[in-house]
């Protein structure tokens, strides 16, 4: 994949969409960000009986981008992202780990302009995600855990649509898409077949190709390898490294795969209940937990800091309560 993105070391960086990025500006600054949602109502008897009332989470100050929401009638305010701050430097691969419901995807949506922070600021290469929304959109792309496509359309049709939305010509997008999909191990014959005929893993590869096509300088990967087989995971991980090493992209990745996080990330933030509970290099994070007869792993760190077990889909599928009850 060729790119026109200048080297980071140059004094000024110009993206393919002609945005000037000030030298020395970090790739991403997240500064005291809060996001809260009104969620499904409690039963009427819990609202009537004070003892049964749920807590509304911590109070977020109402300034900054400030639309601090109030709990609507019959609804409960849940804090999905709670006073989160961190900085990601250029060409860094930054991991965000956390249990399900810890706020990882909400954080990614905040960074990708799909949500507005209730409070705090997020700056992408110096551009505010609220005030400079269009500039930020030109700099980023995102791969979400669900491969969101027009399922009747082929990868070619979906990728050309996605690329054109970013102003890339159809001809250029077609050439690059073929290159990237070949690099990711997708068969040529699949390129023009409907997406609905493809496996989850293959669809995810097309989703990754779609994001790479637009040459983002900040790539947001929300569990990109979920559903991929081990070989495909390695191919994607190698491609992510290549994006950073060759094309100077900065990458923020969320994952449940601790080995992946360990292998890919320069630094990792662990998120629990919307708060960052640890942020450091993988090596330093491992020093936070004691040796328990073996070298500490990121999984040990995760369980120690979040107090939760890793529950994978396979575990749920293998769960057979009748066997457990039978001893």
């Amino acid at each position, binding site marked *: 994949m060729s790119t026109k993105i200048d080297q980071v070391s140059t004094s000024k960086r110009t993206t393919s969409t002609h945005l000037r990025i000030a030298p020395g500006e970090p790739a991403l600054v997240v500064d005291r960000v809060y996001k809260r949602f009104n969620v499904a109502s409690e039963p009427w008897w819990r609202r009537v009986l004070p003892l049964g009332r749920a807590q509304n989470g911590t109070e977020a100050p109402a300034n900054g981008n400030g639309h601090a929401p109030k709990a609507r009638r019959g609804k409960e305010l849940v804090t999905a992202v709670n006073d989160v701050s961190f900085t990601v430097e250029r060409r860094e691969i930054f991991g965000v780990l956390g249990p399900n419901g810890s706020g990882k995807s909400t954080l990614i949506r905040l960074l990708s*302009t799909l*949500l507005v922070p209730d409070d705090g600021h997020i700056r992408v290469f110096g551009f505010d995600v609220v005030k400079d929304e269009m500039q930020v959109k*030109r700099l980023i792309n995102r791969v979400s855990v669900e491969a969101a496509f027009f399922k009747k359309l082929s990868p070619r049709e979906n990728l050309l649509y996605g690329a054109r*939305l970013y102003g890339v010509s159809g001809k250029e997008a077609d050439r690059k898409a073929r290159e990237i999909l070949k690099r990711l191990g997708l068969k040529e014959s699949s390129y023009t077949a409907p997406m609905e005929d493809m496996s989850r893993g293959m669809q995810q590869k097309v989703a990754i190709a779609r994001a790479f096509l637009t040459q983002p300088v900040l790539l947001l990967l929300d569990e990109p390898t979920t559903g991929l087989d081990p070989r495909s995971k390695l191919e994607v991980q190698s491609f992510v490294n290549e994006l950073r090493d060759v094309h100077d992209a900065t990458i923020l990745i969320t994952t449940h795969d601790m080995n992946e996080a360990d292998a890919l990330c320069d630094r990792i933030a662990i998120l629990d209940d919307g708060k960052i509970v640890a942020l450091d290099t993988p090596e330093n994070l491992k020093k936070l937990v004691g040796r328990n007869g073996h070298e500490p792993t990121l999984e040990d760190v995760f369980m120690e800091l979040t107090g939760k077990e890793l529950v994978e889909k396979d575990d749920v599928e293998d769960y057979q309560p009748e066997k457990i009850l039978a001893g």
Partner: protein
Amino acid sequence: MIKGLQIEARQSYAFVARNFNLVKRYWGWEVVWLAYSIANALSVTFIGAGAGVITGQTDINTNFLITYLLIGTLVWHFLSGIFNVISEMIAWERWEGTIEYTLMAPTRRYTQIFGQAAFAVVYILLFTATIGLVVSSFFDLDFSDADLPGAVIILLAGSLSFVGIGVVASILPLLYPERGAQMTNIVQALFLLVSGVYYPVSVLPEWLQTVSKISPATYVLAGMRAALLPGTSDQSLMSYVWPLLLMGVVMLPLGIYLFQRAERYTKRTGKLKRNG
């Protein structure tokens, strides 16, 4: 400047190409819909053919009645088709799960709406013309005195205001993920009732006649009948065009403004994603 316009053109074309690809992939449904629309148009126009038999009167000008009903059914098909394509632009994306990806792209809303509207006008015009040709072949209709250029001008002016109304209606699926798409059907039904699609507006109760004055479809239908059925109106065609242009000039920017406000609201409340 030229580079910027080129990018905007590509972005608009993204929606045109995507929609034509969807039509191609869902060709079976398109055939079904075309067959249904032709049968529906024929059913309505045969009411005109059977008017004499129904009423027992022999001096009814059935050809006039057939043409009157055919214009109504075709114009309504065209306008409601445009309304549907525009108002469902968000509903489609919600069904497919692509809404976040599209709204995350650096594409301005007016660019998106321009692409969607361009597709709607071309596609629905082809669809409606096919219905018109098939239905006309069943009857011996005479359009030799018709003002065809005038009819095209009325239709295009009407498209502008219906695109604007469609944009306003598309806010509903944005704000109400579960019921928004159904709500747009109610809006469409109201236009059908008050605009004089199959009957003159003058037969409506007085309060509905007042409502009909704010429906652009009323002016499109009256204007089209004036152009295609000479002698049905003593007003000039421009008297139908001006209200349509005025409504279009108001509704289109208003629709885009309201859409942007609604988009901002969904980003504050997390309604872009159904499950918060």
